[in-house]
């Protein structure tokens, strides 16, 4: 499938105002339950991470180092005090390990190039959970089945954009075909990069460990600052090699057995 036909997200965190409208719109549309009602103490983030019941998650990173936080000097964007906000989501990887390991075919790649779990086929085996290099997919505590962002497959089929992108008031979450989004992101990086040298695209490289993301990001710091793996690799990347080795080993074993059998003196 080409980038022209693949649909995805470009999440531009430099436009995010941390309103969490994406989280709410996602839960409303996909009828997901609330996760709990405890204050985390982690800035304004009380949902913590993506989970089986939280498919959009806004991270809040407070960066106020000692020097910038002078008692009487103003903190400003340019003086170094920052409060980063970023709405995380399933990456809809080009090489999706969750899909690779699914034994029931519940996970499949759609005609939009997105990766979707079919709730009624999933048997809750959970293989996909450790397979995801981002820790995105998870089993829902209420159903026991795996769940994650579907990129609003149902809305896409109706020609509508995903709920989160629709709700985002500042166009931090942009939906479209990947080729156009990547072009836009590259231009945006060039602009933002002149203001902030830390600006970088995350997941826009088709040569990365997952073959590029279907939902990629513009960050203004390293991915790990946002709780994202710096160089994710599809966990099933070595599977073909492993199968090959296993097959070789199997073949060798079989050959040995055959040899043993053939070569053995006839007892009769």
């Amino acid at each position, binding site marked *: 499938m080409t980038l022209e036909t693949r649909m995805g997200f470009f999440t531009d965190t430099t436009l995010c105002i941390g*309103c969490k409208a994406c*989280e709410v719109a996602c839960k409303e549309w996909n009828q997901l339950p609330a996760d709990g*009602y405890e204050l985390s103490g982690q800035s304004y983030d009380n949902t913590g991470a993506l989970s089986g019941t939280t498919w959009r998650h806004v991270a809040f990173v407070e960066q106020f180092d000692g020097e910038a*936080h002078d008692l009487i*000097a103003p903190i400003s964007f*340019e003086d170094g005090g920052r409060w980063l906000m970023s709405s995380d989501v399933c990456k809809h990887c080009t090489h999706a390990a969750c899909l690779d390991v699914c034994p029931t075919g519940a996970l499949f790649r759609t005609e939009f190039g997105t990766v979707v779990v079919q709730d009624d086929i999933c048997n809750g085996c959970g293989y996909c959970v450790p397979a995801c290099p981002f820790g995105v997919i998870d089993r829902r505590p209420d159903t026991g089945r795996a769940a994650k962002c579907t990129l609003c497959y149902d809305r896409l089929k109706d020609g509508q954009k995903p709920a989160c992108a629709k709700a985002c008031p500042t166009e931090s979450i942009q939906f479209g075909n990947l080729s156009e989004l990547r072009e836009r992101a590259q231009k945006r990086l060039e602009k933002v990069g002149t203001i902030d040298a830390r600006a970088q695209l995350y997941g826009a490289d088709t040569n990365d460990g997952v073959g590029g993301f279907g939902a990629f990001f513009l960050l203004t710091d390293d991915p790990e600052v946002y709780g994202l793996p710096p160089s994710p690799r599809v966990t099933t990347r070595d599977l073909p090699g492993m199968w090959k080795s296993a097959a070789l080993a199997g073949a060798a074993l079989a050959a040995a057995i055959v040899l043993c059998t053939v070569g053995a003196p006839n007892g009769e």
Partner: protein
Amino acid sequence: MGTSFGRGGATTFQQDLQNADCILIMGSNMAENHPVGFQWVMEARERGATIIHVDPRFTRTSAVCNFYLPIRAGSDIAFLGGIIHYILENRREFTEYVVNYTNAPVIIDERFQDTEDLDGFFSGWDAEQNAYDIQSWQYKDMPVHAAAGHRARDTAAVSEATGGHGHPIAHHDAVCDETLQDPNCVFQLLRKHFQRYTPETVSQICGITPAALERVAKLLCDNSGRERTAAFVYSVGWTQHTVGVQYIRAAAIIQLLLGNIGRPGGGIMALRGHTSIQGSTDIPTLYDLLPGYIPMPQAGPHDDLQTFLDHHASKTGFWAHMDAYTVSLLKAYFGDAATPENQFGFGWLPRITGDHSHYQTMLDMLDGKVNGFFCVGENPAVGSAHGGLQRRALAKLDWLVVRDLVEIESASFWYDGPEIESGRLKSEEIKTEVFFLPAAAHTEKEGSFTNTQRLLQWHHQAAKPCGDCQSDLDFYYHLGKCIQEKLRDSTEPRDRAIKALAWEYATHGERAEVDAQAVLAEINGTDANGRPLSSYTQLQVDGSTACGCWIYCGVFADGINRAASRTPGIDQHWVAPDWGWAWPANRRILYNRASADPDGRPWSERKKYVWWDKQKSEWTGYDSPDFELRKNPHYEPPRDARAEAALGGAEPFIMQADGIGWIWAPGGLRDGPLPTHYEPQESPVANMLYAQGSNPVRQEFERLENPYNAPATSDDFPYIITTYRLTEHHTAGGMTRTLPHLSELQPEFFCEVSPELAAERGLHNGGWATLVTSRAAIEARVLVTKRMTPLRIGNRTIHQVGIPYHWGYKGISVGDSGNDLLPIALDPNVHIQESKAATCDIRSGRRSRA
């Protein structure tokens, strides 16, 4: 805003913020509380504008601005005064604009004395009455309006939230010095007034550096003038102070000096706190106003219509037609029963006998003077200052009707409030009979919202209300019918008004729902033949027209509901006149005549908006011109001209009696012609400028139930407390703490403190703290964050504590109420409580349950 410019509404619209070259957001957390409109600020930033946020806390707004400056809560007038000082001392004002479009050249009565002369008081102070006599604030040799001498004291000094216009003055008698040199002209008085607001002094008061102030001032000046414009954005961070109206006045003065009013990318964007707050002052839920900012008549001085009109109507400017607006309103109220013989039923209107604002009413309730109460669209048990007092007042009622989506705290205080928990009140001893009536949500009813930019937008019914839920419109319509039915045979004079009320609307469906469009049509107004009017200029004094709210006239022009216009922005010009309908006359930027120079030419090609088309001899441009369409820019009114004819062709503020913007307010405000820095009612520091600490005219309520924290010198309450809202919750929480998807995002009541304050008081992130004032002790979880900055004030470090005020004892997410901490101390003009700055103490651990 009304006093300065003539209309009590934002001068611009949020989409226009994208055209600004600089935006100063102050007294507002726009990104968190107005996230949808904030896209236009982001758009401006992307186009290269400099966005500045000045606030006690580093919020989600600060995070996306170019420059953030922490400031001490309650010191904003000093800061803004510092900017005025900078403009004047560096001659950065837009001279041509200032001379032509403002009252800067006007010479003031020589008896006037400034706060600089009288150590914090203006002339005219009457200590016994606790009020000003405003005669010495008048224009020189100007015959003072008949009742103006008493106006500031005892009548509705309509202003900001109540949104009146500048008070009536005679026009064209003003003595002016267009060189701005006369020591008694407004410009020089302004200069003298703010002379001591130097960067050094202001920095001491606000807890900032002199360089930071100068940087903001320079950014504003560099981005103003012919080619560039700067905008201001404020919200309740400015209004909720004992000197709140003057905060906005200070911004108005800056914007007039810099020539930023009436121009694209300029203006003052007043952000209202929720959906139809603007609408609820236009067609008011306020005690002292009638629809369209017509003052409510008073008992005594306003026994007849003519006296009332003489008292309030200007002779010049569009308020000269107040008679037509008022008579048409009375016709809409009373229909055929309103005749010239009975003064169109003017005598049937209720009269004001004193202060009937929310807080005074609650205090009266506490004293047993209020028997019954309708609590609608509010939740005073959580949302009003001094929650304990509010709840104890509710417990004194005979009956209470609460109409809401869910059973809110104000309906349940009698069995699960904090006073029940503490044993201070006992359910069995509370006599209040509570009637809880379920209300329909906005999705379950049709109607219009008037949003923060005066824009009426129609919403359609998406689903029928479930169960007994009912819309407000239906409820009040049927209640009115019931009351009329009960009074059918009454001969009591007091019942005449209700009996005369024109209360006939078409209903439909089995529940007899009122057609909301019929109400909008009535608000719009009709001529003698019942045809819809298209402009308020058609309103008549003879009773031949009826109009429910003159400023809304035109919303139903030609029988079309223009509030329902829905042409997407991308399919029309950026001003988007075909989306909704904005009062007045579908105008998006007010006073837009000022976007052209006195000759009617745009100030610059870049900031072109409305201009005089010589060929066609009319005003034209991107918006509906806020001016008589064919009035030549060089028109000079004859001396005896009245109404709009008395305004010259270069006088853009057409609602003002003198057609110009008021840097100086000769009337209309109770606390001074110019803003002055006063400390909040409760402040940890003394006023560094004057012996007079706080606004002398502020409304204090000295009574046992409403104690104030000891003054600046005491160590009992050393910290500043400031309240606010979060994106995730709505006001007192009734609509959000009850919803799982919002409750999980901000699940618990918390306070925000700096690491330095946390160390000083042994507070831990995620732990508990008890906040104490002389009103209450409440507990909150603690967020320790460097987003809170300790400030240096003099040689002291001042800490500020931030608390969102959403929580209460009902819902999924529950917690103590921040408002329980606050005292009742009010702005004298609009009776708004000071909830953005008070003092407190904070201790580690949970509150005592004993």
